[in-house]
């Protein structure tokens, strides 16, 4: 089966204030995606302010120079659109999916908050309360909350930017001030630190004029230099465990450092495919071994990047394997089986047919992600910001299909026990 690729018609330009703009027309439906991605995320938040990047994302919805609190939501939804924002390790995105006749509104709303969000004591206190409820519902009040994405980084990494809890501690959140927010905005939310991506039902020539009209006047504020977040690889296995009082079943996750996803892109790609060889579907190595044969796991997942997207993360990052087990299964049994399967792959390699079917399925996953306008807009914005290559969104299936069996074998050989970080969850809520 030949793996297809897509070539999106991408137009790009940069405004005088440094804002990078990407336009991707697609007239097939009267819908347009608007995304602004700022090059700041969890890794950039200051010590003593864990969770601040995410809290700040909430504050960006609380009104801006020409918009009262609640106006943003109402204007988007009264245009027939939807909106959201999300905070990641290396970026923060803000977006709207709109009927195309509301495109200019989206530009106005994004420009207004890029120019001057309205950050007040009252809004800050309100959103600290909302974020605390978000953390309670997503982490504290549920079993496996934050597993593994918040729990594994401190096992793998040593430095604050890479290791800390990105949702934040309540103490740090409650310590946040309006001055902190203003300083964060001034440092990181400059137009030259952002990418604006518009995809869908648009005429590039006309829209370029609209972008100029709304964004050209946003003052240039200087571009922050991104710190070097690199850390050395592990030189010995690290292992930690914790008890989750709500969890009915034990779980275990393991992580290995992988090559720089951007600086060493070619070397990184095999790991993305390897995660699928190991965990995608009933014919994958670890599902067959752990679920079907040994019956030591009830679910298995594997991916590159802590938040599950292999292509929206910078160095340093990891390949993660995680599994939940039936009651009473010792994590060591699972770890040993994973070691054996990795060893088998590293020693015997895999048949070309096995690799090809995994690559075909991976192509389906990736093409499926660029079909909906909103997810296409977002991933192209991030690819443009981190790599200057929005087009990669359509090219990834083919690039991943070029990974060879020898590269998979070599990548598997790197996932040795002495390079791994392991986190066990003890089932405190077992019946």
């Amino acid at each position, binding site marked *: *089966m030949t793996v*297809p690729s*897509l070539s999106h018609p991408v137009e790009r330009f940069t405004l005088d204030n440094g804002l990078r703009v990407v336009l991707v027309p697609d007239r097939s439906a*009267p819908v347009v995606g608007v995304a602004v991605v700022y090059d700041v995320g969890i890794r950039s938040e200051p010590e003593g302010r864990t969770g601040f990047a995410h809290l700040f994302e909430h504050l960006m919805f609380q009104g801006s*120079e*020409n918009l009262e609190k*609640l106006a943003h*939501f*109402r*204007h988007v*939804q*009264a245009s*027939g659109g*939807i*909106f959201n924002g999300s905070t990641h390790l290396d970026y923060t995105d803000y977006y709207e*999916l709109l*009927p195309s*006749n*509301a*495109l200019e*509104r989206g530009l*106005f709303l994004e420009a207004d908050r890029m120019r001057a969000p309205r950050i007040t004591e009252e809004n800050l206190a309100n959103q600290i*309360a*909302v974020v*605390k*409820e978000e953390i*309670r*519902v997503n982490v*504290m*009040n*549920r*079993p496996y909350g934050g597993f593994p994405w918040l729990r594994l980084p401190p096992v793998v990494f040593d430095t604050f930017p890479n290791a800390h809890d990105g949702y934040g501690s309540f103490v740090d959140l409650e310590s946040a001030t309006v001055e902190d927010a203003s300083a964060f905005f001034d440092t990181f939310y400059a137009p030259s630190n952002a990418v604006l991506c518009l995809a869908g*039902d648009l005429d590039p020539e006309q829209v370029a004029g609209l972008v100029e*009209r709304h964004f050209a*006047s946003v*003052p240039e504020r200087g571009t922050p230099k991104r710190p070097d977040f690199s850390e050395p690889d592990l030189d010995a296995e690290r292992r930690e465990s914790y008890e989750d009082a*709500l969890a*009915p*079943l034990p779980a275990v996750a393991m992580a290995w450092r992988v090559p720089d996803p951007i600086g060493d892109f070619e070397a990184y790609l095999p790991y993305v495919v390897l995660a699928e060889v190991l965990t*995608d*579907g*009933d*014919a994958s190595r670890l599902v067959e071994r752990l*679920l*079907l044969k040994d*019956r030591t796991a*009830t*679910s298995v997942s594997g991916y590159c990047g802590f938040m599950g997207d292999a292509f929206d993360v910078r160095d340093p990052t990891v390949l993660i394997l995680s599994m*939940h087990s*039936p009651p009473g299964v010792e994590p060591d049994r699972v770890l040993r089986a994973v070691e054996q399967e990795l060893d088998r792959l590293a020693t015997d390699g895999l048949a070309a047919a*096995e690799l090809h*079917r995994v690559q*075909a*399925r991976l*192509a*389906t996953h990736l*093409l499926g992600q660029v*079909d*909906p*306008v909103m997810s296409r807009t977002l991933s192209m914005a991030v690819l443009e910001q981190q790599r200057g290559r929005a087009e990669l969104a359509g090219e990834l299936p083919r690039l991943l299909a070029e990974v060879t069996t020898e590269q998979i074998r070599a990548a598997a050989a790197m996932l040795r026990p002495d390079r791994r970080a392991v986190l066990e969850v003890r089932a405190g809520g077992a019946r």
Partner: protein
Amino acid sequence: MTTLTAYPRELPGLTPPRKGRRPAVAERVLANGLRVLVVRRPSVPLVELRLRIPFQPAPGRRGAAHLTRASVLSQTMLSGTAEMSTVDIAASLQEVGGGLSVGVDADRLLVSGNALSTGLPRLLELLGDVLTGATYPSGEVAAERDRLADRIEMAESQPAHAARKALLGRLYGTHPYAVQTPEPEEVRGVRAPALRTLHASRVLPAGALLVLVGDVSPARALDAVEAALDGWAGSADVPDLRPAPEPEPGPLWLVDRPGSVQSSLRLALGGVDRAHADYQALQLANLVFGGYFSSRLVENIREDKGYTYSPHSSISHLAAGSVTVVDADVATEVTAPALLEIGYELGRIASLPVTQEELDQARQYATGTLQLSVASQGGLAATLLTLTAAGLGLDWLYDQPARLAAVTVEDVHAAATRYLAPARAVTVVLGDASVVRESVSALGPVEEA
């Protein structure tokens, strides 16, 4: 400092809307009774597949026993045929970039999948192999049912699941909808022969619906379906479920979850299906109340009071009845105040008219988002399947703007009074009873699990 450069300070108007093209739906009813719908949408070189088979329990049978078997069946339908093992099936699907999964609820069995569009014939062939030849091997059934039981236990430890379970029990009483997840112990007792019997009697084409959306030629896709699913035959002839009961108000039902740092609040209210004359008015009343972010509920208990992260109200449709469900997970210490505000907002919308501005905003949202829901292969496949199964078809979606445009403030008021009045609510609170019991009891009668 701001610069002196002029820039727009006021919200730009909307430009004239560009109408979405109504997709052409190719249809064929096969000799075996399977209804097939195909839409060409070549946005990416993939094809999405959905197969819906009616799976409601037969009358007189215990709904929970049927659901238990159906759940294990859905987990093991892809576990083997005479020629292929689980791994063979999965690997064969992967060869064409494909995947299939099977899910079940109180109304239907749903097979969902996709593949590279060039792989459609092979995807259909494998689907046909499974539909006509799934063998439910005993070893695989034993493993999968245990795994399913473990996964249900995991789900039950989630507050959202436990709260929903309590609400369904309270809401539906003896109707089969009262239990929508089987008990782990019962799952562990299911045996392969029962699955083979259930498959033979219910996994049948008459009354089933197959939807394909993607980069395919409709004529060729219909022929490929006919070729692949020709050998699948049979009819179950199970009557529709009796109508689900209306919410029967009673004391607040408090379910203890010791140590919980939040309370999960769930309220069930009246609802009507999409074909009902009141539907659009209720839909808009629900939006104004709590159905989208710019609603009274979100603006009150999130953006003003900070009690919760994502309060929400939605109308959910099952074949035998529709219901409006309000949910909010709030900090334990504000459980009673949050309930008070929810009751206040329900009382307000039921007893006072909404403003014209609120109505227009909700209407614009409901109209605009219709286009968004069908702007991808997956979205279009899901929408087409849902609307067709509800007896409406895709035309319903494209005619919906005109129906929404006709709704008046008075219509919304009448619908809110009829369906959203707090006096009609079935209320469940899952939380730490020792902490919230007293304050919640101050608002009205409470019963505990």
